[in-house]
């Protein structure tokens, strides 16, 4: 293997380099100031600037042409571009929430910004990795930063439990993943997806070893993106973690995990193995049902959104399966990306509203605590309503169009029964998405946002809500752009 690094490689990974350098700024400044926090706002701005520069570089240097770097182990194609920018934006949104959440602001904010940016660096590696070992590196970089962030933020027991649970199960999933990688290496002699891409379809049929390998890799990702029955950690961790970090995990982390999942599925292993195909379809159905039914029974708002995010993983898995079986075009993959964009907007919006209501770092927000919110904060209540209706898939929000493209792609590939399960589940989900709206608007109470200043989060919420409506109405060109960039 050649080990020389060309300028081209460096240019392609410039978003990661920029992110790494930017992540050092806040902690370096803190050290230079004698371990005293600088102004939190300037820390936030440094972090955001790092993310923006990285996103711009990613937008410039990666694209449909699909350049590879470091001996074909990183691929900078349309998926990298869209999903990378989406993950960076979601991380930026979470940073804004962290800036004003009682559990994350304060004297460790610089460290949190550093960890968020280094976690984002791991995300960028994950979205661009086509070598399974690079995938592993990306996963670990992303996750290790997150374990730390969850563990250090709070003094509360639930957060520690969440961090430990996330750590143990994350490690477990990674181990399964690595086990699968070993099998794949054994049967193909390579860990690079590009190398065995052409052969994979046949190998699944002929080589038991390869089938085992790809199955383990898929199971590893099922843990990461919380597909039932591997979802059990999700509600506990999302509930226990500080709200901005739950937002980060539910959006950015999920996006990039799905990006890597998409690359595995794109090997078309599903076509070779009917069993694998059937099992994944059932997993999608079970995930949707488990997520939605369990969400109905939740009183804790964060837990409810956590289960809703499990259900949405099920919808996205439908799209992944579509992408895995479609012969021509990139409709399925594009619908997954579009859905992830819409999902990130609305889920981060929900977490932002929850974060605004938290008065102390141990606050627990139940659905009933929202009573009277609409009277006190009509604009925010309206935004929350938009998020929830979008999650439920009511037109003309972006959530409806996300589902529409996803199911349209599935029908196009003949996955009609999966689509029917999907729409039935979106009816079930309406029940619990309406509950917060009912409580906010139709019950009397004294719900209010926290007493400390929340200007940045408010702006974020308004931006999310506006994007949900505007992207909904103009979804066509965006979807076409995504689809073209994947061709």
């Amino acid at each position, binding site marked *: 293997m050649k080990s020389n690094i060309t300028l081209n490689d460096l240019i392609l990974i410039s978003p990661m380099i920029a992110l790494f350098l930017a992540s050092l700024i806040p902690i370096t400044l803190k050290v230079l100031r004698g371990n005293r926090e600088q102004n939190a706002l300037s820390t936030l701005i440094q972090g955001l600037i790092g993310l923006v520069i990285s996103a711009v570089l990613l937008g410039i240097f990666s694209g449909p042409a699909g350049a590879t770097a470091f001996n074909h182990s990183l691929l900078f194609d349309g998926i990298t571009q869209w999903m990378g920018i989406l993950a960076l934006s979601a991380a930026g949104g979470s940073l804004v929430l962290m800036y004003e959440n009682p559990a994350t602001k304060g004297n460790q904010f610089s460290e949190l910004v550093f960890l968020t940016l280094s976690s984002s660096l791991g995300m960028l590696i994950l979205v661009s990795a086509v070598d399974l070992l690079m995938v592993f590196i990306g996963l670990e970089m992303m996750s290790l930063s997150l374990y730390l962030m969850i563990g250090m933020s709070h003094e509360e027991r639930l957060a520690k439990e969440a961090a430990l649970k996330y750590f143990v199960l994350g490690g477990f999933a990674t181990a399964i993943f690595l086990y699968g990688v070993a099998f794949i290496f054994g049967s193909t002699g390579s860990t690079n997806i590009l190398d065995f891409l052409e052969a994979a379809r046949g190998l699944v049929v002929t080589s038991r070893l390869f089938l085992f390998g790809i199955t383990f890799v898929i199971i590893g990702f099922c843990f990461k993106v919380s597909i039932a029955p591997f979802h059990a950690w999700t509600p506990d961790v999302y509930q226990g973690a500080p709200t901005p970090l739950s937002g980060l995990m539910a959006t950015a982390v999920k996006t990039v995990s799905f990006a890597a999942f998409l690359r595995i599925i794109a090997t078309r292993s599903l076509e070779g193995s009917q069993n694998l195909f059937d099992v994944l379809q059932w997993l999608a159905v079970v995930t949707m049902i488990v997520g939605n039914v369990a969400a109905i029974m939740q009183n804790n708002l964060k837990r409810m959104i956590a289960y809703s995010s499990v259900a949405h993983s099920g919808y996205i898995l439908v799209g992944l399966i579509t992408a895995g079986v479609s012969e021509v075009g990139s409709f399925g993959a594009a619908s997954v990306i579009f859905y992830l964009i819409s999902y990130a907007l609305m889920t981060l919006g929900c977490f932002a509203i929850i974060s605004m209501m938290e008065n102390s770092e141990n606050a627990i927000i139940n659905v009933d605590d929202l009573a009277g919110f609409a009277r006190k904060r009509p604009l925010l209540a309206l935004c929350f309503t938009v998020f929830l209706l979008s999650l439920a898939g009511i037109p003309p929000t972006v959530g409806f169009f996300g589902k529409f493209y996803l199911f349209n792609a599935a029908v196009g590939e003949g996955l009609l029964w999966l689509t029917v399960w999907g729409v039935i589940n979106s009816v079930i989900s309406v029940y619990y998405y*309406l509950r917060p709206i*009912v409580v906010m*608007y139709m019950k009397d109470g004294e719900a209010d946002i926290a007493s400390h200043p929340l200007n940045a989060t408010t702006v974020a919420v308004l931006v999310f809500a506006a994007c949900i409506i505007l992207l909904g109405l103009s*979804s066509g060109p965006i979807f076409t752009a995504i689809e073209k960039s994947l061709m």
Partner: protein
Amino acid sequence: MLLSAIVFLPLLFALAVALWPRVNSVRPLALGFSVIEFFLSLSVLQKFDPSSAALQLVEKHLWIGRFGISYFMGIDGLSLWLVIMTTFLTPIIILASWTSIDKRIKGFHACLFILQTAMLGTFLAMDAIFYYVFWELSLVPMYFMIGIWGGPRRIYATVKFFIFTMAGSVLMLVAMIYMMYLTQEATGQMSSSLLDFYKLKIPFVGGQFLSLQTLLFFAFALAFAIKVPVFPLHTWLPDAHVEAPTPGSVVLAALMLKMGTYSFLRWVIPLFPEAAEYWAWLFMLIGVIGIVYGALVAMVQPDIKKLVAYSSVSHMGYVLLGLFTFNIFGLQGGLYQMLNHGISTGALFILIGMIYERTHSREISKYGGLAAVLPIFASFFFIITLSSIAVPMTNGFVGEFLILLGSFSAMPGYAYVAVLGVVLGAVYMLWMFKRVFFGPAGALVSDDKHPLHDLSMREIAVMVPLVIMVFWMGLFPNQFLDWSKASVTHLIKNRSAYSLAIYGATDAVPNSVTEQSAPAKEGAQ
């Protein structure tokens, strides 16, 4: 531009009302807006050519080129009067709710205007996805209307309403997506335009439920049947009506239910002609069951509003019966009955709201002898009752007569049972009228501490246009039926191969080619 203006102007009004700084002048403002909207919609009548069955005042722009989804609106004889009725009733509803809605006034009027946009859009959209957007959007303002301004069990009622309707419509969405793929197979270009859907030849196997056309037919029919609502799927309606505030009930009964029956006429019958014909017996049967069941259940209701709600089930049974006769009398009658029901049931709900405001009770047994105390109210109530039970010279008679005429020539067996419904309708309405207005004065009426006042000028102003419409539509039905005749005749004649031309397009073929070339280019890239 006219149709776009009609559909989206209320949305602007909603915004204006929501941002209006002074609460006490919101009501006149909203009333003014809705009157402007009404006059704007009247200008459609001026431009509309009643002799043509084609789609008129068409506006078509590509919206999502990738899937051939377009911003496509048009009006023909089937939708014309429903649009006018929607804009006609909105100012009346605002005037009727002048005093009964006393909290969150801005929010209420904003909801009402958004709802108006959604309903008008449903009646005018000619593209499946565009239509679906309006169809689902209509749930949200209604959900808030019942949930915020409704009665004690409002939350249960509104959630039930939302989930029932949504459950029906998601399968319709899948069917629409499937049909988009069918258009792609047939023409090579995906399209969700209703006119392209009409051109599809969907294979039909009689007697086999799992055949394509039958499945698509039921996916659509289920959505509309829940909205109408037909007999076994009607349970959300009494709950929603009883808990909704008066204006909510009026919108729900007079306008939203029509979305279901209109969609049967616009979508189900022309799109799936063989399946519709094969399963017509089923829909006529549930129509007839609805007529009798609704009437019988209405008879025993102790609550006036619930009585009227069940009478809606009965009346909508007539509409369904008429639509599935597939002859000119039945269809025209069904269409006319939609308007009648909108006027008379809307008026009944408004009247019930007026008396409820005075006594805060809707229990029939607490009334009695009301005619002596409130003579003007009693006269209005009597006229509307007559209209509801289809006495000749009122609008109800024309509709029911045409439907019965149509069903006698199509399926006499059903017509015999349906006639029973006419008698039962008279029984429950007149019996209720007797118990409320005549006899010894009831507990509420004889309460000296709270003397009842007869209708105010505002309330009379609310009722007068409705009463005028009752007689106008009853005495000169042709002035209304002539406008829809061409479209209905066209539908009946060409039912097995229905197509809808665009008015004024001299040659439809090159026109459609240019329309479709834009998405073709996008798809090729």
